[in-house]
């Protein structure tokens, strides 16, 4: 300490240097603070945007996770439903009769009123009843308890999306219809349980019945095909290029083009698939198999690039060690390098698949946006995928589809987050220090 204070007088030169360092230090510190601040600001902005996105999706989508249902005591009238005529029968009339019992004062002599009354129930209610009776014809003549979805306008009313204060002519439900619903509610037959139909139903024209089952299964098959093709091919190509191919003009050319391929807009792959897979090979339209092939074209460059990076990251000392003992090139690659690169490869693959899961444009081009009301039985059946289902729903005018679109996006995001979390988990688990 004493030295420091005495220093400047004895050796002015040294003192100047120390001053200069101190002066520049404040400047450098200020710069560092500024950089840190900017970085934090950028991260904060990103988080804010993410928060707004998720919040808006949740606020518009959470309604779709519940579904307004009505519980009816249905007398399966043998007059209307005859065992020998199944599966046909007057299911709609039977349902309407049990509704009339709940609302006795409604005069059902007029056809329009009967229709309006039946409109409380979802169109799918009669099919629910039919399926139960067909499964067990002994129900005919008995009274059964049935819980069925209400139709979309009443669902929206129950969820508060339809404002009772708007003038009647601007409302989808008339005053008397709202009154019916309030009476039903007062009788305690209206409930709002978790909407399992969102996952277990296929698509439908009626929002209260529409679900993601077809899209989920379609996406599963598409991703499965995509993985089964792009993973082995991508890794094989990467190993060859990285470990065995001679470095020359041709391999440089291939490398450049693989990188270019990764940057090609996905819609172009869709056009290619449309021309080649469907046009030339005659594969079926709208099939997840074709979707998977198309997505594989897009995922392969990603996997090749990730695999090559992972192979490159294996320290050369490991190769030298194995070579030095007399391992052959392929023993080195498959016995040492590839296992060590595997976590990196898997991470890249999962991220590639996550991209493929969210990819929409190429699937639209090969017709995976068709309106299909049953889940596919296999990869060659017509189906939609999650993103194309979102696309379809987003295009539909009914109120019920608005919240369902957001809910479907949340489901898709859920899958993407899960996949990325798995990738991060794998990366951390297998991270090594050499």
């Amino acid at each position: 300490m004493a030295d420091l204070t005495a220093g400047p007088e004895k050796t002015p030169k040294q003192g100047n240097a120390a001053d200069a360092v101190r002066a520049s230090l404040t400047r450098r510190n200020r710069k560092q603070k500024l950089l840190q601040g900017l970085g934090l600001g950028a991260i904060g902005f990103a988080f804010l945007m993410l928060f707004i996105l998720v919040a808006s999706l949740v606020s518009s989508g959470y309604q779709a996770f519940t579904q307004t249902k009505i519980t009816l005591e249905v007398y399966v009238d043998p007059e209307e439903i005859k065992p020998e005529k199944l599966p046909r029968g007057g299911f709609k009339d039977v349902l309407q009769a049990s509704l009339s019992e709940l609302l006795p004062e409604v005069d059902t002599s007029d056809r329009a009123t009967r229709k309006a009354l039946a409109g409380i129930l979802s169109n799918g209610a009669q099919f629910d009843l039919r399926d139960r009776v067909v499964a067990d014809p002994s129900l005919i003549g008995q009274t059964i308890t049935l819980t069925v979805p209400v139709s979309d306008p009443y669902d929206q009313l129950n969820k508060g999306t339809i404002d009772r204060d708007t003038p009647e002519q601007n409302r989808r439900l008339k005053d008397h219809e709202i009154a019916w619903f309030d009476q039903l509610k007062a009788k305690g037959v209206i409930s709002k349980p978790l909407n399992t139909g969102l996952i277990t139903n296929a698509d439908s024209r009626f929002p209260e019945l529409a679900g993601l089952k077809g899209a989920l299964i379609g996406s599963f098959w598409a991703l499965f095909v995509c993985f089964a093709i792009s993973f082995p091919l991508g890794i094989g190509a990467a190993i060859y290029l990285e470990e065995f191919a001679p470095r020359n003009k041709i391999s440089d050319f291939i490398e450049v083009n693989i990188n270019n391929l990764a940057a090609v807009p996905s819609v172009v792959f869709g056009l290619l698939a449309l021309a080649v897979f469907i046009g030339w090979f005659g594969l079926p339209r709208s099939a997840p198999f074709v979707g998977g092939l198309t997505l594989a074209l897009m995922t392969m460059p990603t996997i090749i690039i990730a695999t090559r990076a992972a192979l490159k990251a294996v320290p050369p000392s490991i190769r030298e060690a194995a070579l030095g003992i007399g391992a052959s090139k392929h023993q080195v690659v498959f016995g040492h390098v590839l296992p060590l690169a595997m976590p990196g490869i898997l991470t890249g693959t999962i991220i590639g698949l996550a991209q493929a899961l969210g990819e929409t444009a190429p699937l639209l081009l090969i017709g995976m946006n068709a309106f299909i009301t049953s889940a596919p039985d296999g990869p060659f059946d017509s189906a939609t995928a999650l993103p194309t289902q979102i696309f379809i729903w987003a295009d539909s005018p009914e109120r019920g589809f608005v919240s369902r679109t957001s809910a479907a996006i949340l489901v898709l995001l859920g899958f993407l987050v899960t996949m990325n979390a798995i990738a991060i988990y794998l990366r951390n688990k297998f991270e090594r220090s050499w």
Partner: protein
Amino acid sequence: MMNDMSKIEQGIAVDAVKIQARGVQVFYGEKQAIKDVSVEILDKTVTAFIGPSGCGKSTFLRCLNRMNDTIDICRVNGDIRLDGEDIYDPAIDPVQLRAKVGMVFQKPNPFPKSIYDNVAYGPRIHGLARSKADLDEIVERSLRRGAIWDEVKDRLHEPGTGLSGGQQQRLCIARAVATEPEVLLMDEPCSALDPIATAQVEELIDELRLNYSVVIVTHSMQQAARVSQKTAFFHLGNLVEYGDTGQIFTNPEDPRTESYITGRIG
């Protein structure tokens, strides 16, 4: 010291040439790292390569088992023969060559596998063990020769990368001797070892000499003097002087050798 000298005499009388290099030149791209080196490495002898950093010791050593093949830009000219056979002959498989000419690297590089698997790897790929018991025996013998058996015998199935640097290096030596090579190349094998482990490795080298030819690159004059019978001094890619260790250290012919040994260049 007297003992050492007598060994040297004995060695020269008995031993034949194991590796003969003539006119070896090595290029990294345009840059020449080895300029016309000729040397004869004897069987059942320890040969030390000494010289200042960057003079090409490692490069020349790696020519002897064709490890330089793995470096794309590296080109080797000249003629290197192992037991009279040209090792750069297209008919020679470098894999077979490396089974005969083992190598220990400067930086310990165990596989990220168990200690047992590290040592067993070579015997396995070359099919040296007929049974599990056989393999167990090879592993134990190799680990003993690597002077590390006592430290690891209770944890053979733990990863080799979990050992200390010095232990890792001895594991690598054990791994190299497990394939029973005829020549063992060691590139500064003791640079990560403490004096005790160094002494153990030197003892091991001395023992290996009874059966093999050992080439060791070292920056320690004392080590070169202790373990080797022959010494080669490299400088700027040239082999300046090659001869009996005793003679090189006591009575070098070339002034560059003398100034390096006495610490004036390096």
